């Protein structure tokens, strides 16, 4: 049984919002609903919170440890886990039956089968996995040519550039998920004091490794993409490494710390310095 989150009010509001009367599970405060005919969403509702994140990690590692035939892949997000599946390869966890459409009353559709599979997994999760969070230090050369918007951020926040750097680099950030682009971390934990709106017009291309602030979020661009975040620095680390088995340097659940480095250190950086 899953423990209720502290944020019970927000949770029930969120449930009310998502409730369609058709797809919620009865046994817990978790919703299970379809994303079309080949994916299912497990939704804890509520707001973005480390507790929910812990449950999401627990479900993902459970699925990794016990691969289910027919499950193609699992995509965690802030408050949901989406499970992609091949409908014709699923087997009912109780009866072992595949989808047959024989017309019998015990026939279960692929959605009903996958719902059974994931609901049982969610029930089986003892509690939030303590999980040993990996700490990843990311060296960042702040300001100058690498952080063209650092000055604007300082002006907007009423801080000095040094203070912005100090605040940004003295925080532990939780990697809630990887998305938007290959290896791009959605980080939680940035102090609101250094929050700044996105740029009014996005840059057509941003260099890989750029560290930015967009609203209340901060992140690192792993590949060259267009983007509207305020750029405050750049890391010499490669966040996306397609030749690795785990191509994203950062993984969901990691703790990120930014460490300021000088331009000379940036220039002299070698891949194996980490």
């Amino acid at each position, binding site marked *: 049984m899953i423990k209720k989150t502290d944020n019970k009010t927000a949770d029930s509001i969120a449930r009310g919002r998502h409730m369609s009367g058709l797809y919620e599970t009865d046994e817990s405060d978790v919703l299970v609903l379809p994303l079309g005919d080949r994916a299912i969403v497990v939704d804890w509702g509520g707001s973005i919170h480390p507790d929910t994140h812990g449950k999401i990690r627990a479900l993902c590692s459970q699925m990794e440890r016990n691969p289910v035939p027919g499950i193609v892949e699992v995509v965690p997000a802030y408050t949901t886990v989406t499970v992609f599946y091949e409908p014709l390869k699923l087997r009912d966890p109780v009866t072992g039956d595949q989808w047959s459409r024989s017309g019998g009353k015990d026939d279960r559709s692929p959605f009903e089968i996958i719902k059974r599979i994931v609901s049982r997994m969610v029930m089986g999760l003892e509690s939030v996995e303590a999980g040993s969070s990996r700490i990843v230090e990311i060296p960042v050369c702040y300001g100058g040519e690498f952080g063209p918007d650092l000055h604007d951020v300082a002006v907007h926040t009423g801080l000095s550039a040094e203070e912005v750097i100090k605040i940004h680099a003295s925080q532990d950030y939780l990697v809630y998920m990887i998305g938007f*682009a290959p290896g791009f971390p959605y980080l939680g934990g940035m102090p609101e004091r250094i929050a700044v709106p996105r740029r009014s017009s996005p840059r057509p291309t941003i260099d890989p490794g750029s560290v930015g602030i967009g609203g209340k979020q901060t992140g690192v661009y792993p590949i060259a993409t267009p983007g509207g975040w305020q750029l405050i620095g750049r890391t010499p680390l490669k966040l996306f490494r397609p030749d690795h088995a785990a191509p994203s340097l950062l993984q969901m659940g990691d703790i990120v710390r930014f460490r300021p480095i000088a331009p000379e250190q940036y220039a002299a950086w070698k891949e194996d310095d980490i």
Partner: protein
Amino acid sequence: MSLYIIKSGLLTTIQDQGRFGYQQQGVIVSGAMDSFALRAANVLVGNDQGDEALEITLRGPSIRFDAEALIAICGGNLSPSIGGQKVPLWRPVIIRAGEVLEFGPCIWGARAYLAVAGGIDVPLVLQSRSTYLRAGLGGLEGRALRTGDVLRCGAVSDCAAKYTRNGLAALESKPFAAAPWFIGFPSRPAYAQEPVIRFIQGRDFRHFTEESKAAFVSRPFYVTPQSDRMGYRLEGQAIRLMQPFEPISEAVSFGTVQVPPEGNPIILMADRQTIGGYPKIAQVASVDLPVLAQVKPGESIRLAEISLEHAEELYMDAEQSFALTEKAIGLYLTKERGV
């Protein structure tokens, strides 16, 4: 055997069924836009259905074959020809060494798939050969084909080799020979002009106004020129929320229909991001994704709602039908008498 790219065409990339298993690392799935045509073309040349092929967009390339080869072209009709003669689609074709395959005007559809027996010999990147241009991943050096490229082909299956040998014997002086049998209309997706694309309600469907929900299923939507492999940007009656609503970002899928605040829906396609944050009004039924993939910018579509159960049944029917098609093709390919 190698393919010499004499002219690259508008956008020709190597695609297979997609790069699965890495979305939680933020890696975009990519893969063929029209997965049916990809699978069909592969099966017709004796490859595995999920192998890589060339995805040819609107204006096709010119390709010289340095040795005889067994090929198949499926999907959109981009006027393929060899030696000035039309090459029919949806069937095996044996091409003589040294001949050039060319493409002309786009008669119907948006994308053609050219499969070559043995596949194309490019490295697997994260377990797939699909090209994802923005990250420079997969395919040939992570990019679209260019004039002057040379693609090496892989090892041909025994049945394809035998079929080709028999066919060559009957070729006489012709530059190519096409099989008299082919994948017929009933065995293909419901490709059409201004097709009706069936969808299941998205999780945020009920957040939209009644007027918008009604317009969504009754009015045609125009596929704008800004549409690409990442997504189709639609224009029609603006789709409005009852009140502002920003869902928490979560996974999206091939065929997820999101509505940004300005009200023009976007259907996410093969090169979609892994995570999306706009309200989801609909999810296209899997069986209609190939149909949608053949709609080109400037054309329109209509949308029709179906139940999840119906979408599942359509999917099963389509997969069973394809399995039969694959079996039949296997039998035809192993017949002794060749093309």
